[in-house]
C-alpha cells in the first residue's frame, strides 16, 4: 500500500465510523479527488459530508473550527501546505486558542492536512515546508507523516485526540510504499544518529545505507512523527548513548527542527550538526532545487564530517 492509499483508507474509515465528521477542501470532489488524490472516492461515498469549498483557506479553517466547536468534527485538506499562511490567524488565534481561553468549556476537533515539501519543481510558493511557523503554538499539535510508520494510524490518532491537529504530508511521499517502523535502520551501537522527519526520512535512510556499505559507519535513523509539542524525552531515548547526531530538515535554516533537536540533546551528545533547506525561496529549476534541499549525498557528507571529528 502506498502512503496516499493509507491516508485515503483512514479517511474512509473515519467517515464510516463518525457520522458527524465533515471533510472540507478545495477540488476534493470526485472524479478529481483532490490535487494529490488523497480524498478520492470520499465524495461519492459520503456525498453530504464531503464539501468542496471556495478558494478561501482562512475562511474554511475558521468554518471548520466553528463546525467542530458545535459538535461536527472536521478534517480540512489544504491543497498545498504553502497556503496555510492564509489560515494562520484562524489556526493561531481561533482554533488553537478556544479551548484554553474559554476555560476548557469547549473542544475543537479539527485536523488540517497540509501537503508540504519540494523536489517536484513547483517553485517558491508551492514547494515550501512551513510547519516550523506553526510549531510552538499552544493548543496545536503538529504531526508529520512518513512511510516508515503508519500514515493512516497517525490520522486516527489525531482524530481520537479531539483537539486541533496539523498533519504535514510530504508531496513526494504520497507515491511511496508504506514500509513501517521495522524498516528504519537501527544498528546496535550506532556511530551516528540522524534525527529527521517527514519527506527527509527516505533520504536519511538512503544515506545511512550508503554510510554502512561504503564506510562501515553504523547509522541509526530516528524519524520524528510529532513535531510540536516536541517529544524531547522520546528523542533523547532514541538517540541513547550515541555521541554524534545530525538533524535534518527541508525547511529554511534556523528557528526550526534542528534547534529543537539541539535543545533536546544539549549536554548529551558530543558532536551535533544540522542540515536544512536554503535561506532563500525554493528555486523552480530542478537541478538547483536538488542542490539546495538536503538529499542523500548532503546527509552522507554531514555524517562523515561528524564522524571524522572524533
Amino acid at each position, binding site marked *: 500500500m502506498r502512503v496516499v492509499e493509507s491516508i485515503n483508507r483512514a479517511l474512509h474509515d473515519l467517515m464510516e465510523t463518525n457520522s458527524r465528521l465533515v471533510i472540507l477542501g478545495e477540488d476534493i470532489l470526485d472524479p478529481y479527488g483532490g490535487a494529490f488524490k488523497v480524498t478520492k472516492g470520499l465524495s461519492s461515498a459520503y456525498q453530504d459530508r464531503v464539501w468542496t469549498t471556495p478558494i*478561501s483557506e*482562512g475562511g474554511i479553517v*475558521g468554518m471548520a473550527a466553528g463546525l467542530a466547536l458545535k459538535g461536527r468534527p472536521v478534517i480540512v485538506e489544504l491543497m498545498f501546505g504553502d497556503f496555510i499562511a492564509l489560515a494562520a490567524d484562524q489556526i493561531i488565534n481561533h482554533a488553537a486558542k478556544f479551548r484554553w481561553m474559554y476555560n476548557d468549556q469547549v473542544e475543537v476537533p479539527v485536523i488540517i492536512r497540509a501537503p508540504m515539501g519540494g523536489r517536484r519543481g513547483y517553485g517558491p510558493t508551492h514547494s515550501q515546508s512551513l510547519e516550523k511557523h506553526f510549531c510552538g503554538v499552544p493548543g496545536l499539535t503538529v504531526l508529520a507523516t512518513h512511510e516508515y510508520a503508519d500514515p493512516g494510524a497517525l490520522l486516527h490518532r489525531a482524530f481520537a485526540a479531539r483537539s486541533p491537529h496539523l498533519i504535514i504530508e510530504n508531496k513526494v511521499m504520497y507515491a511511496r510504499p508504506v514500509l513501517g517502523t521495522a524498516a528504519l535502520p537501527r544498528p546496535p551501537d550506532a556511530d551516528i544518529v540522524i534525527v529527521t522527519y517527514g519527506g527527509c526520512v527516505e533520504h536519511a535512510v538512503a544515506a545511512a545505507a550508503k554510510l554502512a556499505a561504503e564506510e562501515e559507519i553504523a547509522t541509526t535513523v530516528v524519524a520524528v512523527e510529532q513535531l510540536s509539542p516536541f517529544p524531547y524525552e522520546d528523542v533523547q531515548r532514541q538517540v541513547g548513548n550515541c555521541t554524534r547526531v545530525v538533524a535534518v530538515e527541508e525547511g529554511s535554516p534556523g528557528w526550526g527542527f534542528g534547534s529543537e533537536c539541539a535543545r533536546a540533546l544539549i549536554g548529551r551528545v558530543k558532536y551535533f550538526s544540522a542540515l536544512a533547506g536554503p535561506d532563500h525561496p525554493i528555486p523552480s529549476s530542478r537541478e538547483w532545487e536538488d542542490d539546495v534541499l538536503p538529499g542523500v549525498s548532503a546527509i552522507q557528507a554531514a555524517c562523515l564530517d561528524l564522524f571524522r571529528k572524533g
Partner: protein
Amino acid sequence: MTSSIAPNSTFSQLEVHAGATPLGLELPTVVRFYQQMMLIRLLEERLLDLFSQGLLFGTTHTSIGQEANAVGVVNALDRDRDIVWSNHRCHGHFIAYSGEVEGLIAEIMGRITGVCGGRGGSQHLCFRNFHSNGIQGGTTPVAVGTALARKEEGAVAVAFLGDGTMGEGAVYESLNLASVFGAPVVFVIEDNEIAQTTPKALTVSGSIVARAEPFGIRTFAYDGNDPVEIFELAREAVGYARAESRPCWLYLRTERIGPHSKGDDTRPALRLEQARARDPIPPMRRRVANFEAIDAFCRSVVDRAVESAAAAPLARG
C-alpha cells in the same frame, strides 16, 4: 409605543420580581429592555470607574451608547439554541445574552469565579452558546461554521461586526461561504462611524449597507437607537435566517458615546455631542414609569457583583 410597569407596583414588588432574573425576562418588553440596557450601562460605567481607580488591569472596550443594539438583537434570539459571536466590544452582547453580571466582572477582575476562570478577560468570553474573541473579523468564518453545525436543530448564529471590521478580508470570505453553504448567520453590523480613533470616512469605501447584497445575501438596515425597533427588525432577520437557512446582513447605525477603550477618545467636542444626542437611555426613561427603581435594582446587582468578585480568589493557574 409606550409600556410600563403597572402604576401601582411598588419598589419592593419590582425588586422581588426583577431580582429573580437580572435580564427581567418576565417583565413587559419595554421595561425588560430598559432594565437590560441599564444593567449594561451601569456595569460598563463601573468598569471604567474601577480602571480609573487602578483596580482593574489590562484593557476593556465599553459599548456605552450601543446598548440598544445588544438588547434588541439578543432578545430576538432563542437563548437556548441560538449562537452568538461577539468581538472586542462584547460586554453588552454578553449581558443581554446571559445576565451574568458577576461572572463578567469577576472575569475582568481576573478571578477564578469569572465566566472563563480569569483566562479570557474582557474580550474572550464564553458562556453556553455565547463566544467572543478579540481578533477583528476572525470570528466571522467561525460563526458560519457554528451555524452550519447546528442548523438542523433550527439554530441561528449571530456575528457582531463593526464598521471598522469592514477592512478585514475574513468578513468577505465568510459572506461567500455563508451564502454558498446556506448558513443561517445574521451578520450584525454596528456602525458607530469610528474605528478606535479613525473616522469611518478614512477607512471604509462604498456602502456598508449594500455590501452583502452582491453575495446574494438579504439585507436589513436601520438607522436609529430604539431597542424595540431594533428588536422587531432583528426578529424579522433572525426569522428569515432560521426559516430559509440563509445568511442575512443586519445593518444598525449607532453611536459609541464612550472611548474606544479607556481614555482614548480624540473626537472633536461637536461630534461627541452628536453622539450623546443619540443616547438610547433617555428616550427609554420617558417610556418606563418607575425607571429609578430599575436603576436602583441594576445598581445593586452591579454593586453586589463587584463586592463578590473582589472577594473571590485571584486566578493564578
